[in-house]
């Protein structure tokens, strides 16, 4: 309403000015001269021109955009304000060139800029509205075409003018229109991506990735343009202060796009390597609705370590922001890649069976005795080796039986316990895999060392020192293994303490031990401790003598000899030593 009033007043004023001039001079040319000589008349004419431009702008806006949404309008006003202040700053640099033509060109630039912003907002809006009419497509396409060709023409004009007449304010225009041209390209790419997505029947999962890379490349081009512009301006004129704010935002956006691309790549990588695809059975069993998009999961879904299932694409975009499970907020980065890769490989093998949950597996010791592994490598004793391998091979299967038994009860109790294994060091589920590959040679017995070997450890030559260092390294690895085992021990003790232990579980190792030789039975003995004496498990580590007695009651006969006042740690150490000595004695 106010706008209409202002334009009416302006028109009235202009009419008065022209009428007055014509009334005084009676002829066309003298009237024109009269108006241009008179400052007040010129002011009125300028105002009128400005209002005409505004009206023309409104008209084109009406043609290309129809009614602006409130958000679009606010956005436009905010950006226009900054653009106007920057233009005023630019005037100070080019005050020598200041003339009406210059002002008109800047006004035109502002106008075109505002249309670019609106086009950008409109294309972003495509993703948000359920109703996109054909009119929308026609408008956007024609607008992009017009803006693109105008930008191109202005860039070309600025280039030619700078080449022929030398540097002038055209430098700024050329640069501004070049930036706008990249903007048009960016909008056009976005429009194409959105249009493809709109016309497909299924969600286009890779659209986000394409958008991300578009953003990155366009950001890079803009940054290069800005840097080049600033360098040229500094060389020819002065520091272009007016370009600093947009340059800052451009660089910031580029940095953000760069970060996003990195995060997205990492998320995709994690997605592809760490987490198993959800099987159709799992999708059937679960609620089957992806909590991120609230749509059914039919294909391309991933399962996190916490057993929550999501669409691969949904999870990927979420991981770009946060590396947690959307449902239970489990920090998925705290589980190390190697560990998860191992787990995945393990899970792929017995896919048909219910996935053996490594955290509930009650007998982690059967197959993970590093010392046993070492012995297997070192001792060419078929008696020991064969059953040991047996136990290792069975490692997959015995795991399953008790797991199946306990799964129903434990899956809930496990959730209540808030999945403690992830608080544990990352080697938890398959703790001793690292040692399979690099077993150190344990100093089995000093007697077994040949005099030559002993001599090699003496002396001051390099090889002697190396031999000593190697020996120390071996000891260190052995100690690490021992620490790992203790952690494993206390972890499984903690787990088994939190859940009821089914009677059947304790029978499992027995069945193993009856089949195998005595060595294996003693290997599985720590597991007996865990399963049979859950009530006293904590005491085992508290070195309470009575509990260690309790715990060892069920062990192999050889263990019964130990005095009851031995602490748990001593008992463990003793048993390990025993295991070292056994093969050594057998050798002799």
């Amino acid at each position, binding site marked *: 309403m106010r706008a209409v009033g202002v334009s009416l007043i302006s028109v009235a004023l202009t009419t008065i000015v022209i009428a007055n001039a014509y009334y005084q001079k009676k002829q066309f040319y003298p009237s024109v001269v009269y108006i241009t000589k008179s400052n007040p008349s010129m002011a009125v004419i300028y105002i009128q021109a400005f209002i005409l431009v505004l009206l023309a702008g409104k008209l084109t806006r009406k043609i290309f955009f129809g009614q602006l*949404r409130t*958000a679009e309008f606010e956005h436009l006003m905010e950006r226009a304000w900054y653009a106007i202040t920057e233009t005023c700053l630019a005037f100070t640099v080019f005050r020598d060139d200041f003339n009406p033509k210059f002002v008109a060109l800047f006004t035109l630039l502002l106008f075109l800029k505002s249309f670019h912003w609106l086009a950008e907002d409109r294309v*972003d*809006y495509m*993703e*948000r*509205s*359920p*109703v996109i009419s054909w009119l929308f497509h026609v408008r956007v396409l024609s607008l992009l075409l017009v803006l693109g060709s105008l930008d191109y023409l202005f860039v070309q004009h600025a280039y030619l003018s700078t080449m022929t007449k030398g540097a002038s304010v055209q430098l700024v225009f050329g640069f501004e229109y070049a930036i706008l041209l990249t903007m048009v390209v960016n909008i056009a790419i976005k429009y194409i991506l*959105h249009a493809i*997505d*709109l016309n*497909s*029947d*299924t*969600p*286009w999962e890779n659209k986000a990735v394409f958008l991300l890379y578009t953003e990155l490349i366009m950001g890079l081009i803009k940054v290069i343009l800005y840097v080049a512009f600033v360098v040229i301006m500094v060389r020819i004129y002065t520091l272009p202060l007016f370009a600093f704010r947009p340059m800052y935002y451009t660089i910031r956006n580029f940095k953000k796009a760069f970060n996003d691309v990195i995060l997205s790549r990492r998320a995709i990588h994690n997605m592809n390597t760490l987490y198993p695809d959800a099987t159709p059975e799992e999708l059937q069993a679960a609620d089957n609705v992806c*909590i*991120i*998009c*609230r*749509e059914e999961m039919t294909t391309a879904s991933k399962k996190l370590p916490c057993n929550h299932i999501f669409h691969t694409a*949904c999870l990927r*975009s*979420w991981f770009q*922001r*946060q590396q*947690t499970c*959307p*449902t239970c*907020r489990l920090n998925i980065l705290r589980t190390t890649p190697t560990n998860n890769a191992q787990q995945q490989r393990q899970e792929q093998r017995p896919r048909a069976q219910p996935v053996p949950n490594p955290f509930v597996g009650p007998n982690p010791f059967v197959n993970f005795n590093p010392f046993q592994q070492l012995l297997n490598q070192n001792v060419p004793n078929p008696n020991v080796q064969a059953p040991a391998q047996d136990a290792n091979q069975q490692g997959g299967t015995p795991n399953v039986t008790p797991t199946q038994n306990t799964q129903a009860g434990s899956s809930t109790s496990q959730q209540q316990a808030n999945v403690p294994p992830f608080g544990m060091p990352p080697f938890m589920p398959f703790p001793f895999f690292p040692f399979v590959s690099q077993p150190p040679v344990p100093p089995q017995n000093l007697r077994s060392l040949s005099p030559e070997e002993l001599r090699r450890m003496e002396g001051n030559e390099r090889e002697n020192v190396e031999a000593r260092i190697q020996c120390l390294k071996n000891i260190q690895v052995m100690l690490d293994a021992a620490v790992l085992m203790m952690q494993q021990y206390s972890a499984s003790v903690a787990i088994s303490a939190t859940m009821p232990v089914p009677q059947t579980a304790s029978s499992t190792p027995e069945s193993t031990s009856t089949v195998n030789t005595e060595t294996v039975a003693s290997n599985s003995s720590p597991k007996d401790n865990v399963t049979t004496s859950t009530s006293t498990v904590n005491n085992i580590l508290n070195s309470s003598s009575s509990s260690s007695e309790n715990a060892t009651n069920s062990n192999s006969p050889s263990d019964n000899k130990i005095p009851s006042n031995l602490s748990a740690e001593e008992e463990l150490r003793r048993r390990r030593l025993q295991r070292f000595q056994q093969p050594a004695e057998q050798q002799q």
Partner: protein
Amino acid sequence: MAGSALRRLMAEYKQLTLNPPEGIIAGPINEENFFEWEALITGPEGTCFEGGVFPAKLIFPPDYPLSPPKMQFTCEMFHPNIYSDGRVCISILHAPGDDPMGYESSAERWSPVQSVEKILLSVVSMLAEPNDESGANVDAAKMWRENREEFNRIAERIVRRTLGIPT
């Protein structure tokens, strides 16, 4: 296919229309734009806001539900967790890490598992039990702690105003 944010908002709108929670109405202001909603929240019974019907608007980000929406009451409000301009400050509306107040636990933070319905229900319980540690409106928080009678009087005046009853 429409964007994923749009599809999820449409799904939530459908859900809210089919099974509306008690005392809450919410939906897009204009069905051409699903990213701006209005909501009407009834003051919970047995509290000083009982009987009031409070209008609010929700603005959703383009990447919803990865980022939380913003919520703002469009009527006058006086509450420890509502800024004087109506913006609501509760933990469910903040992503972890984004912590304007500095003492919200991460458990209640925004994640895609939350929804419009959960937000509105949290706001209802916020109306019933203000968290006076969060200082969105320090005056209201202070009054809630120290002068409950005065607080109730102001709340009652606001309730009457939302109902169009002269105060």
